[in-house]
């Protein structure tokens, strides 16, 4: 069974998803997310992992922060980055919604087509 959300709820979800998905459109940013999924990391550590400048990495991280995919905690000199699970959950839920939606529809399409063929066969015999 698929749940439906109210239009205002949907608009808000859609706006959040736009930010999430556009932040994830870049391979470097996806790699940063994958890295942070393993463990929190300092900005400098992330920069070391990727062969791009600290400046470039900072820009990517800012985009991820704006999409709320990544959170930054300042501890003295260190800026620690962590993945924000809640922002990811919205995106995962969106995908799951359509997977279930079309999965359900295909199941009932099958039932319909098979029943139709059965009654057509009966009709032919009569």
């Amino acid at each position, binding site marked *: *069974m*698929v749940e*439906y*959300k*109210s*239009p205002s709820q*949907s*608009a808000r*979800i*859609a*706006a959040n*998803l*736009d930010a999430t*998905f*556009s932040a*994830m*459109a*870049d*391979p470097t940013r*996806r790699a940063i*997310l*994958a890295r942070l*999924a393993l463990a929190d990391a300092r900005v400098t550590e992330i920069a070391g992992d990727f062969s791009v400048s600290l400046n470039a990495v900072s*820009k990517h991280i800012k985009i991820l922060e704006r999409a709320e995919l990544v959170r930054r905690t300042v501890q003295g000199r260190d800026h620690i980055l962590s*993945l924000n*699970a809640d922002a*990811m*959950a919205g*995106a*995962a839920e*969106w*995908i799951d*919604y*359509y*997977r279930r939606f*079309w*999965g*359900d*529809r*295909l*199941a*009932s*399409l*099958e*039932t*319909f*087509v*098979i029943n*139709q*063929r059965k009654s057509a066969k009966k009709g032919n015999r009569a």
Partner: protein
Amino acid sequence: MTAITSVPTVVVKRRIAAPAQTIFDAWLNPTSLAEWMRPCSSGTTRSTVKVDAREGGAFEIVMHVPSGPVRHTGIYQTIDAPRRLVFTWNSPHAGDNDSLVTVEFRPEGQATEVVITHERLPEVARNGHTAGWTEILESLAKQISD
């Protein structure tokens, strides 16, 4: 900085023991569509359906769920019987943006594999690297839920 909005793609498949033409017709015949294009095939009201089954033609499917009617609309882009059906898809859930649904009917002996690909079209450009991100999203979601 690329101005491309990456989009998620959902692919759902099902093997149905019927010829492609039979299954294809069930998508465009309004009586058939009303019968199966609804949240639960048993015990609920049939959907209310309007179909203009030609390329450029519009459709409207109102599904009746316990919380009220939910309207889905779209325009047929490609009608290539019995192989391929492409239409835009707009529902309250998806926000204001049209998404795109492609249904492919692949014969497998006496049966047909039906493959639905649902893409949310980017607003800026259609090109872009959508591949790979679904997996990443899934693996991240998995790690989060573990």
